[in-house]
């Protein structure tokens, strides 16, 4: 078929897995070397395609975790048991293997540190991934630029062991321009003094910026969590235009 009749199409490329890192018992990061990669924006994703020997194809989206300033592309995938794509990415792929990807994709759920002003990031589970790219991008900016774009993160995870990028988040939170709040919904360590419930109105009000500061807000995670947090934020007075969402789908 006349390929030229379909302009703008993103080509699929075979990336090579150059590093694999276990983040939590259920999530791991794949670092990919993608040929002819054009620099991404923080918040973008790639599409991944798996093709079985019989020709059956499965395609999924995965957010980019690495900062635009990094040359390789990191994806962090949470394993969903007995599912199609995530167990392959989490358990089967090895360093040196190829993986078909296309990207970077998406011009809506993106943030650049030069867009000064307060930023509020709200994550549920693996929804932390694109927000981590934003935090890593922020961390690479100059001191005055960071000061112009102070960030608050509210991250809801099932348990302390399920907190992805835990040590890096603790390090990032040392910055005067980064505030990290973690809420655990199921199990918490005995000495846990943080939040122990799902994201609710009071938590968003307490951990985020007041609407009067007109923060940019990015909410990402399982669809039910994203929809509930986004409507609570609008009820708190935030302009819906400033509340951007990235729904990952069901919670399983």
């Amino acid at each position: 078929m006349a390929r030229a009749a379909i302009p703008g199409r993103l080509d699929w490329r075979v990336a090579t897995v150059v590093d694999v890192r276990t983040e939590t018992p259920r999530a791991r990061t794949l670092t990919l070397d993608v040929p002819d990669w054009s620099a991404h924006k923080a918040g973008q994703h790639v599409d991944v395609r798996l093709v079985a020997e019989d020709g059956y194809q499965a395609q999924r989206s995965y957010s980019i975790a690495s900062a635009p300033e990094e040359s390789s592309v990191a994806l962090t995938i949470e394993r969903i048991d007995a599912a199609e794509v995530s167990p392959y990415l989490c358990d089967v792929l090895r360093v040196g293997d190829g993986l078909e990807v296309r990207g970077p994709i998406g011009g809506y759920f993106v943030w650049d540190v030069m867009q000064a002003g307060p930023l509020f990031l709200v994550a549920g589970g693996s929804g932390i991934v694109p927000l981590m790219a934003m935090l890593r991008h922020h961390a690479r900016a100059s001191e005055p630029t960071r000061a112009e774009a102070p960030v608050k993160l509210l991250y809801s995870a099932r348990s302390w062991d399920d907190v992805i990028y835990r040590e890096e988040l603790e390090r990032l939170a040392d910055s005067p321009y980064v505030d990290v709040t973690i809420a655990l919904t199921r199990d918490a360590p005995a000495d846990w003094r943080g939040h122990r419930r799902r994201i609710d109105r009071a938590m968003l009000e307490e951990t985020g910026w007041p609407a009067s500061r007109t923060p940019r807000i990015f909410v990402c995670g399982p669809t039910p969590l994203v929809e509930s947090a986004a409507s609570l934020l609008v009820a708190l007075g935030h302009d819906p235009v400033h509340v951007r969402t990235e729904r990952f789908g069901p919670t399983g």
Partner: protein
Amino acid sequence: MQTEEMRLDGNAVAGSLLDVFAVDVTAALATCAGCGAERLVGALLEYGHGMGVVLRCPGCDAVMLRVVRAGGSVRVDASGVSLLAIPSD
């Protein structure tokens, strides 16, 4: 499972939209032909799931854009969009 739990943002299908549009349209402003609401394409609601792309208006739930691959062609029904404003430099 409820279909509400399955839905995504228009931004999630930006890769497939590039099969149709020459540039990324997720930051383009789309006016709903049904209710007149203006939303960024990335903020529309996506219900496609394998069959192709189906973008609905978050305001009135009308289908704004449908992209289906069938019989060697990509079929685009944009009758639910009365205006699409794509940012250009």
